[in-house]
């Protein structure tokens, strides 16, 4: 297994796109506290705004870092097929399950590490702009930040699973952007139509929407027309997201074991 981990780590760090994605994610994430600090540096910070600054807007706007790391996840498997490197990969490491497990562990580890670095960068920026980061190590911010790390890891693994399932990059990219940004948003919107409010109980099972609960310090706001979605608690909602990722990875893994390379 160590050989497989060494292989995957070398694969990741010898790709220019890894550095671009990680760098872009860190910059995009840091832009949020920087912008907020410049625009409203004199405003007092509460738990929600501290959380928002530390996770780079992930709990409110778009999870920038998660999206960029998901692309790293997609590349981890999709690139192998796009550039035909799956053949030399499997002649160097023919034990397929070991290879996939190494990819999962390496990409998940990198995502967790990058997320922690991002939080540290954002905390430093907030410290510089506001003069302090109140409640950083206390709940609810502490739990929300742990949830943010978990969210990014699961999001990245969804990307990895999709890249392996589709055996390419474009289809996986379409799904990972289309599903949370359009399909789930549209579904939530439909529940606000009175005739379709019976759809509301399903919302807590929408994987990306449920996953977002991991990062919150207070209940999510969907607008005055939104019914009560009765979300599970933070970690159970994270479990919904994790089960979704696991289903994709299990399907992709099973097919990878039986398909021709």
């Amino acid at each position, binding site marked *: 297994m160590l*050989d*497989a981990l*060494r*292989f995957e*780590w*070398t*694969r990741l760090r*010898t*790709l*220019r*796109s890894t550095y671009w994605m990680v760098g872009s994610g860190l910059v995009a994430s840091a832009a949020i506290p920087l912008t907020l600090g410049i625009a409203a540096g004199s405003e007092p910070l509460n738990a929600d705004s501290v959380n928002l600054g530390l996770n780079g807007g992930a709990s409110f706007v778009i999870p920038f870092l998660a999206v960029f790391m998901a692309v790293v996840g997609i590349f981890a498997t999709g*690139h192998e097929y796009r*550039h*035909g*490197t799956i*053949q*030399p*990969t*499997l*002649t*160097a*490491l*023919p*034990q397929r399950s070991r290879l996939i497990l190494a990819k999962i562990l390496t990409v998940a580890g990198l995502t967790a590490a990058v997320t922690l670095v991002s939080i540290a960068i954002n905390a430093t920026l907030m410290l510089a702009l506001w003069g302090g980061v109140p409640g950083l190590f206390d709940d609810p911010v502490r739990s929300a930040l742990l949830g943010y790390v978990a969210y990014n890891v699961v999001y990245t693994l969804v990307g990895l699973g999709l890249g392996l399932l589709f055996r390419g990059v474009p289809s996986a990219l379409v799904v990972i952007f289309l599903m949370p940004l359009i399909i789930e948003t549209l579904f939530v919107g439909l529940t606000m139509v009175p005739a379709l409010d019976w759809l509301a109980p399903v919302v807590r099972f929408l994987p990306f929407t449920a996953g977002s609960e991991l990062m919150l310090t207070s209940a999510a706001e969907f607008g005055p027309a939104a019914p009560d979605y009765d979300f599970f608690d933070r970690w159970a909602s994270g479990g919904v997201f994790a089960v979704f990722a696991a289903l994709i990875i299990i399907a992709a893994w099973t097919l990878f074991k*039986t*398909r*021709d*390379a």
Partner: protein
Amino acid sequence: MIAAKGLHKRYKQTVAVDDLSFEVRPGVVTGFLGPNGSGKSTTMRLMLGLDHGGGETLFDGERFTDIRRPMNRVGALLEAKPFHPTRSARNHLKMLASANGITDARIDEVLETVGLGPVKRKQPKGYSLGMAQRLGLAQALLGDPRTLLLDEPTNGLDPHGIHWMRDLLKQLATEGRTVFVSSHLLSEMQLMADELVVIGRGQMIFNGDVDDFVREFTQSSVIVRGPDADAFVPVLEAEGATVTKGGDGELVVSDMAIGAVGHLAFTEGVELSELSTRSASLEEAFMSATGAAEQFVAREPVPATTTGGARHA
């Protein structure tokens, strides 16, 4: 030693590899021949566990997928450009080496061996097919393996490169390694291979020595020249020989040994200026052996006057 037993692969209605069994011995270069679409690449992928199908292949008694750090035992070159366009050649090999406990010094050594030393840190997206093949060969040689599986390794190489590849593979075989190489360049194979595995439509046609293959699938001809050669034709045919006229007016006699032809000329008083045998080439043997097994048959060229091509030109 490679031992392939009952290899089988089906794509829906098409049987790509049909119960192939053969052995590849160490110490010699074994050529793998077959027409386009005959299943050569699929067979090699089956042998390495890249494709799923029936049968099994043992490399010195072990299946490829069971070998820990397989690059140290079996080196493979299967596709023309199997690398990421922005990862340098050295980093590409470093990635593969990291799974097989291979040192950086060995990476640099194989890159020098294949002639890519000066460009090892450059991105390979601009590599020609020949350079890509050299990188593929470096990949196969990386673990200094006892067994090599190479699919069309001379593709894209210039004449110097082909000559170099031939010498290298022969050298590796003389070191006692098992070298299994497919190629469509039959002239190269004739110079390089000692033994052959020939397939057509996924089925075994021949497995054995190159010379035996040529003997089995072609006939040696006797060349006859002389001032009265035409008059000699009915005499030869009366004795059961098959005679055709060559392009330079010579008689090409088959189904009769050279000694019998000479004796007949002597007894009939026919003056000869040449009496010699012509051995068939590997290419002729290949055409004879696989003619019926071609999957993709091109139309014979038609003269331009018939098609009107010249008028359109």
